[in-house]
């Protein structure tokens, strides 16, 4: 057998393996699809927002997959954040919301879901490029009471009560 024929035979074998592997890989996501089918939309979104729980969200992340292999996982913060933002009424357009928990996942979600409300961790605008810069910006403003927030021009505050996120009017009750 010539080298060329051997190469061509190997190529055919490779393509057969590729095609077979594709079906096996797809069947691996069947369980995930079935799980999604059984859930209401809000829970499907929360599942999709959680990298450890969603095979498509983990795609391409080789290190993450290795770290997650064989471990039982707590629900990701991103899932709780998505559930809260997609399931809660947004603040009125133009409202200024103080984010009391300076986590990038909350900050990014709030900016998307609540546009055109203004979300901030401090009264003065600062450059936010990642989690670290968000925490630095938040550290510059330490309100002790709702009066401080009102004085800084905030209408609402996003905070946590226990494990639950909550949006409330400055000086008022949760919405």
């Amino acid at each position, binding site marked *: 057998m010539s080298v*060329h*024929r051997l*190469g*061509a035979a*190997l*190529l055919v074998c*490779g*393509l057969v*393996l*590729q*095609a077979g*592997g*594709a*079906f096996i*890989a*797809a069947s691996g*996501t069947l369980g995930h*699809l079935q799980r*999604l*089918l059984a859930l209401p*939309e809000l829970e*499907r*979104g*929360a*599942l*999709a*927002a959680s990298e450890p729980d*969603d*095979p*498509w*969200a983990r*795609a*391409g*992340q*080789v*290190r*993450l*997959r290795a770290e997650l292999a064989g471990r039982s996982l707590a629900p990701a913060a*991103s899932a709780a954040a*998505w559930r809260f933002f*997609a399931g809660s009424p947004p603040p009125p357009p133009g409202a200024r919301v103080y984010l009391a928990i300076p986590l*990038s*996942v909350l900050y*990014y*979600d709030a*900016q*998307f879901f609540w*546009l*055109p409300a203004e979300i*901030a961790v401090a009264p003065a*605008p*600062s*450059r*936010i*490029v*990642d989690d*670290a*810069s968000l925490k630095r*910006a938040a550290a510059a403003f330490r309100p002790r009471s709702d009066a401080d927030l009102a004085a800084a021009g905030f209408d609402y505050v996003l905070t946590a009560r226990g494990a639950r996120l909550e949006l409330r009017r400055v000086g008022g009750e949760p919405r």
Partner: protein
Amino acid sequence: VNTAGLLAAAAALLTVEALGALAFAGLAGPRRFPLALRLGASFALGLLVLALGLFFAALAGIRPQSWLALPLAALLAPFAALRARATPVPSALPAAPPEPRWSALDLALAAGIALFLAWALAGALLEPLAEWDVLAIWGLKARALLAEPLRIAPQLHAPELAYSHFDYPLLWPLAMSWIWAWCGEIDLTAVKLLGPAVLAAIAAALYGLVRERASRTVALLASFVACSLPMLVAQSVRLLADLPLGLFFLLTLGFLARARASDDPGALRLAAAAGGGLAWCKNEGLALLFAAALCLALPGLTPPRAARPRWLAARRFAAAAGLLAAPWLLFRLGLDSDYGSGGGFSLRLAVAQASRLVDLVSAAPRYLLAYDDWLFFWPVVALALLVAGRRDSGLRWLAAAVQAPLALYAIALVGNRWQLGDLLENVFSRLLVHFAPAECLLLALAVARSQAKN
């Protein structure tokens, strides 16, 4: 599931296809192209037409609205009508052998393609938009463009939103805002139709590009391999912007290869349009565009007698693609592109951190051989090139054009501020998505070539 939202999104996607079909007809000239290629390429061109149209409308203070499809169609229709009057002539490529009957393998491959597209569609519709990258970057821009005209949208300038990368191009956000404009609300499920639509366009374009030169079985195989790649399915489900970039790169090189083989000016115009789409899709598109133009002109990849026409073709291609990209590139000059510690590239850093190249090369196999993402795809592509690439000059050119941007990507990764391990974990596999559809074309043509030798 909101049925009305899904129907509105489907109608929005049909307008994308219709606008693209007009653009295709206007650019293609009298030569015939396979129907599948027309369909796949039309979707990509429709995205580009929409991006250009909505961008200029937004600059004029008009937000994305469904009625804008009419003036855009009216602008394109005269060009399409002008070309339609010309007498059609057959493709200048040597005709692939006619195959009136579908073999059992053909039918199995076609069923496999349908199955994987349905799989991606089911995943996309069962998961509302939740990928944080899409929400924080593309989705935020899409919402901002719907809310306010581009010239005043604070979301493109406010420092507290710098994480959303102001200088990222607007094709994908504009496509999302187009769907939401048709839905009349921010529907987080209906917008997901875009992802599987791009995957279907890749499958159709690949089939058409390969079918012009090879058997139906090989063309179906190329489509099947592309739409069954787990990484591509995941990207279409998650609505990431790397997949449309992969579509534009496939079309750019596919049409350029056709133009090289047949001196078809229509194919060169279509390649230039797809090249313009690269720049509108992602910043990496500029590297892909530059590399494609370079490979078209490079003397080592061109037979000596044909050097001058190829050089002219390269200039025409670069000028037309550059003209389409220019509005965005000029607008981008006024945007802040400094990501601070959030990443970003600097040439000075690339020189200072040159030793990262060794780490990059040693880490690459971990991602290239990741079975969960790619199965055996990259080794199979390498094998196909070894088997068939050496003696075929067309294949050699395509192989060079597909791989050339890798050098530019490597420089960008070396000169990035992020810690390399984290950077690769986040972007390496996504960057491979840009190349995967074009690699499928290469793989199929190599398989066809190896069949011919046997």
